[in-house]
């Protein structure tokens, strides 16, 4: 089973990387981009024998304890396969 975890900054937290991307795109002549944000995508390969609910609970635990800093970040979890 695969878990895809998307970690991104909470709304309201200034995103220097996103801002730099936006600025760079503009100066490269790409107009029509209104906003850019950069987050992380962490992919985990999990043992296949875990059921989806247990897996989700464990990945959620991983996120809270390590993968995301909930002071500034939020996360979503997708399970596949």
């Amino acid at each position, binding site marked *: 089973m695969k878990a895809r975890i998307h970690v991104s900054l909470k709304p309201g937290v200034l995103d220097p990387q996103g801002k*730099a991307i936006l600025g*760079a795109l503009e*100066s*490269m002549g790409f107009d029509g981009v209104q906003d850019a944000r950069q987050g992380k995508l962490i992919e985990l390969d999990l043992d296949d024998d875990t059921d989806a609910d247990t897996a989700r609970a464990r990945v959620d635990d991983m996120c809270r304890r390590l993968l995301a800093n909930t002071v500034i970040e939020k996360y979503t979890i997708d399970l596949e396969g």
Partner: protein
Amino acid sequence: MSDAKITPEIVAEHGLNAEEYARVLEIMGREPNITELGIFSVMWSEHCSYKSSKKWLKTLPTTAPWVIHGPGENAGVVDIGDGLTAVFKMESHNHPSFIEPYQGAATGVGGILRDVFTMGARPVANLNALRFGAPDHPKTRHLISGVVSGIGGYGNCVGVPTVGGEVNFHPGYNGNILVNAMTVGIAPADRIFTSQARGVGNPVVYVGSKTGRDGIHGATMASAEFSADSEEKRPTVQVGDPFTEKLLIEACLELMDTDAIVAIQDMGAAGLTSSSFEMASKGGLGVDLALDTVPMREAGMTPYELMLSESQERMLMVLQPGKEHVARAIFEKWHLDFAVIGRLTDTGRMVLTWHGETVADLPIDPLAEAAPEYDRPWEPTPAPAPLDPATVPVVPWTEALTRLMGSPDLASRRWIWEQYDHMVMGDTVQRPGGDAAVVRIHGTDRGLAATTDCTPRYVGADPVMGGRQAVAEAWRNLTATGARPLAVTDNLNFGNPEKPRIMGQVVGACQGIAEACRALDFPVVSGNVSLYNETEGQAIPPTPTIGGVGVIDDLDRMATVAVPAEGEAILVIGGGPADGWLGQSLYLREIAGREEGAPPPVDLAVERRTGDLVRGLIQAGRVTACHDVSDGGLLVAVAEMALAGSIGATLSVDTTPAALFGEDQGRYVVTLPEAEAASLLADLGGTARRIGVTGGDALVIGADSVALATVRTAHDGWLPGIMSSTPGRS
């Protein structure tokens, strides 16, 4: 895979010509399999075998009473007193950095660090000599930003300060930048490690990161001329992991404190192949390796891939029998892979097995001895037409100075070195920005000074003189801090040596380097050669970078470039009233847009006399600041001292371009209290002349002046200015 038929195409792809392949067949007595062919190919690549340059490298002086290990080891080792040694080397990562600037530069730093700590030294300083294309070339800014963040990204993380280097810009590097990285380390004199394998039956141990498919054929790539289709070779880029390197440094140094290690060798270019070959060959032994026991990152790897992979952060060691557990415990503590992958044998052969089956069996000595060595045809570089002084335009000195100080080759590099942690380890006594960086020898009041230097425009015009000049400037930069220059490492960057004109540059530069090293007692203890630096037939300017290291016995007697106080006398030591060499000068290039003439001559006897004199003055505490005169000439040197100290100067000198901006060699500017100037001048006789006095916030000559603030804006503003425009990846 080992059954693949060896076709002429496959041989050619491995970079071996027909003659070389015939020698392979002779040595093997049969057709090699693909793994064996791969091994020959990397061992005989230009990068590993130095086949075009060996003949000339042998002409460099490599000994002195203080040299403990000269070229031939992973890094040079010189005695610095108190039972300690300085261990250092420079290495290029030019091609990888052009393809992927961040990772190319980062792994370049990683590689040179390993060369140094392999010998038992703790790395204490990193330097980097960089050459980029024209500032306005569409790729340049992307390359600068990638290379600088890559060097910082790696060096900062491993916690070794990056304290110095140099940067030049020239359209000749548009398609082929140069990234030369240097590391200086310190090791106890009685505990130097080498790669010479000893002891039949001793375990051969692999430590560090796992092996992946990184950079397979990287070594061959570094030896092949670039072409537009090099995009194809992109997957050969390796990714560095500085965190693992940091752990590897600590683990290796910890193990080195025990008596477990017999020999150790980092896995650099050509990875497992060249490391195991070199160790066995130096010990006159054979080696059996069970390749299936190599820690692997990916499934399905073949013996060929394992032998050719250039995965980073790996080391090979021979251990004392029975010490495996000591080593394993240390590497496991540091979360690094550890595996016994083979044994030393007395067969003189390298035998590789894969799950018990032999997949390669080659003789070591014949392969090493038969490595091709070429006496490539060469043509001396024709002497350039002398510059006609009457054709040199004269612009007001105030304008010329401001333009020069803000020109690509002279502008401040602060934007670069502020991205490097240049203070970690708590011993950086002279930060970047001076003549040489100085790091304190930990726990003492002594220091090591280090610098890198080369003036490619001089080498291009006259390789012999340019080679001399590069060594002389490194020696001068060390001297200007008060250091006693000890030895150099060199990084010879040139185009395609199969062209006699290029080979002539190699030969000429080696001759000049050898002359200067001999005259200055400044031997070459390590180095690296990077050839085939060409794009679409266009060679880079010849760039034999010199890295110099010296020792300061008392840090209280050290000089810096900053003007320390108002009202001090300013003296020039060396040179004379007839100074004014504008051939190949930056004045000519930046103001007149011309690169012409012969470079300034370097008189090695005078160089040595002047330098020894200046060093004596610094050590005697008779001068308060010192800076050598190099690119841009006398007024630029004074301006740099003024900016560093934020104190201006009033000079009484000729204001001709020749007098102010001539690049005559062997000169130093010093300051000292006014009251002591007369007696010093009397002592020095004709070798010194007084040119002015410090003070104020401008540079003044006669009725004209330019505010320091104006000079500073030009000097500090140029690099951030170009880098703040579009960061595109293009």
